[in-house]
Every structure is written in C-alpha cells, then in structure tokens.
C-alpha cells in the first residue's frame, strides 16, 4: 500500500467509525466517546484497537460487531478488532463534541477530569434548565457509567455521566 493510500483509507475508516455508537448512548459516536485508540494497516487487513469503557458494560461484545458490520457494508471486509485495556479508558477521553452531544441529549457530561480526582464529581448544571441547584438521587443510573440526579429548580430528574 502506498503511504498516501494508507492515509486516505485511514481517514475513510475513521469517518465510518463516527457513524457507530454504543447502543446505550446512541447520540455519541465511539470516536467521540474516546473508544477508538488506533487504526492501522497490518499485512493485508486493517486493524482497529478499541478501548472498552466499563468492564461490565453489556455493549462490550456488541460494539466490535457493530463496527465490523458497518465497515463491511462500506466494503471493508477484512477488519480485525482488538480490545485494548491498557491504559484503562477514561471519561477524560470523551471529546468536547461528545460532551456537547451528551448535554443536548439530556445527560449531564462529566464535570472535571477523572485523572485529577478519585471520585465521580458532580454535574455542573441541569441539562434541562441550566440550574446549578441539583441533588444526587443515586450513585447509579440506568447504566454503571451514570448517576441519577434531580434538579431542584425545574424538578426534572436527569442522568449524570460520572468522571471515571
């Protein structure tokens, strides 16, 4: 493969990966979630390293399958995927665009850097009305990555993506 070709194909694959998301957070692509670590050619195939988010995430087996299917539809039939756990995935890897999309979807994005704090932090404001007056309902939400909060201004419950 020529060097230019590699560059173009890699961009093409990266573009396609922007169209795949964790089924539990459908608004954010796996790229914006920070799960795509590396895309590289190896002999006759392409190799993708993905970082699993939580060990217990039920999507852990589904995402590689979704990636393979989506890339196969675009003509990439020989794709090898490896789950890379070192270094462990962190919410610090979620892109700014990913965080904005979470907020627009009604999930308060992680507030603060996981690398700087041992615990999950607290939401900056309510994704519905923007109020800073919120309280914790439960450290766990519908998925392990989220906590349940309630807004004390508009009284709506919402989920907070914990720093991890």
């Amino acid at each position: 493969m020529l060097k230019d070709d590699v560059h173009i194909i890699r961009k093409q694959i990266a573009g396609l990966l922007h169209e795949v998301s964790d089924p539990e957070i459908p608004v954010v692509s796996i790229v914006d979630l920070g799960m795509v670590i590396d895309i590289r050619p190896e002999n006759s195939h392409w190799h993708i390293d993905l970082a699993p988010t939580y060990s217990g995430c039920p999507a852990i087996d589904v995402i590689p399958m979704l990636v393979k299917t989506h890339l196969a539809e675009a003509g990439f039939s020989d794709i090898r995927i490896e789950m890379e756990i070192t270094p462990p995935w962190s919410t610090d890897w979620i892109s700014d665009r990913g965080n904005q999309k979470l907020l627009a979807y009604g999930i308060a994005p992680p507030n603060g850097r996981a690398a700087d704090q041992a615990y999950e932090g607290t939401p900056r404001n309510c994704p519905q009305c923007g109020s800073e007056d919120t309280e914790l309902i439960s450290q766990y939400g519908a998925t392990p990555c989220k906590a349940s909060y309630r807004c004390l201004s508009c009284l709506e419950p919402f989920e907070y993506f914990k720093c991890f």
Partner: protein
Amino acid sequence: MEAKTKYLLHLADNPLILGQRLAEWCGHGPVLEQDIALTNSSLDLIGQARLLFQYIASLPGQDTNEDKLAMTRYEHQYLNLLLVEQPNQNFGHTIARQFLYDAFNIIQYEALSEHADEQLKGIAAKTLKEIRYHYRYSSEWVVRLGDGTEKSHHITQEAFNELWRYTGELFNMASYENELQESGYALDVTLLEPEWQNRVSSVATRAGLKLPKDEVMMLGGKEGKHTEHMGYILTELQYMQRTYPEMNW
C-alpha cells in the same frame, strides 16, 4: 495445575461468584435505585472476572475458553473466598459483605496494578477504578445503615458478626500463593491486613458498629473447600451449560 493458573483462577472466581450473588438481587432490591446499583455492580464484577478468564485461556498450553472456565468446572476447582459465596439475606447483610470485600480489594488491586506481568497489571489497573466506586458505595451505605435507625443498625451489626468469621481467609496464604512467593508473582496477602483493619475500623467507628473480636476463622475456599452454599450457586450458574453443553448465544 500450575500455581500461576490457580492464583489467577482465585482472582477471577471472587468477582464471578460475588457477581452471581449480586445478580440474585435483580428485581428484589429494597428500592429501584438500589436494585439498579447492585445489579450494575454485578455487571462490573462479572466483567472483571471475564478479563481474567480470557487471560487464563490465552496462556500457553491452555485448551479452554472463558465460558468453560466460568461454567464447567466442579465445585472443588473454584478457588474463591468463602466470604463472597455467602448467601444474600437482606440489604444490610449484602452491603456488609460487599464492604468487607471491597476494602480488601482496593488494597489488593492497588498492589496488583504494579505487577510485573503486564497483562495482569493492565487488568488490575482497569479493575481498580471500578473497585474504588464499589468501595465508596458500600462504605457509605455501611455508615448510613449503622448510624441509621435502631433496626438498620441491628441488622448491619448482625451481618458483621456473622460475616466476620470469613475475613481471616482474606489474609491466609493458599498453597499456590506460597509457591509463588519466590518469583514474586502472588502478593503476600498477610501484609495487607493492617491497612484493611484500619479502613474497616474507621468506617465501623463512623457507623457506630462494633467489630467482632477473637472469632474462630473459617478457611478453605481458596483451596476449593467451600461452604454448603457453593453447590447451590453453581447449580444455577451452570444450569444452561450442563443442560445444553457448549451452547452459544
């Protein structure tokens, strides 16, 4: 079986069996939020066990896979702690069991995340982040229940009294751990006890709970000698694989 494989199985069986126990809470939690919290923790634990089983299966000379390891061994081949197989009774008891285990696991996994085996080190670093969450959850609930109503205090104190006899095993070296001391592959768990005692007693003090003293300690789980409860767990855990061998989703 090699000592290293046994040690890794011991590390994997703890979260597998505790994860199975927590999964039994699904649909039975005291309130919806806690039902979800316990089952989410269960998912984390089973995910952690999977990472270790996958690693064991990838070692040279292993003709197995993660499913076979988790679902087709016999009772005496499971090397988990007795503590994690103890049956669910009530929410306070489950929280106490979780707390005693999490407090130990934080210390154990902090050490394992510095391991010379790069694979084990990576798994440990990933797992440690989750254990910290679990510890925060279980330790806060110990305080809330211990320092709560008369009833919640009583139930939690009873749980500590009953579970304490299984904590000696956390710091008792299994044969394979002794064997692996020379190479440094296994931690010397006896060294972890003082920090565990500190953690547990500081939370117990905040919770107004008394830690039992001079209890006769039960041992054996790490060597495959289990309490009567283990067979019942395996019956449920292994049902599908035993009924339809090698079935797949």
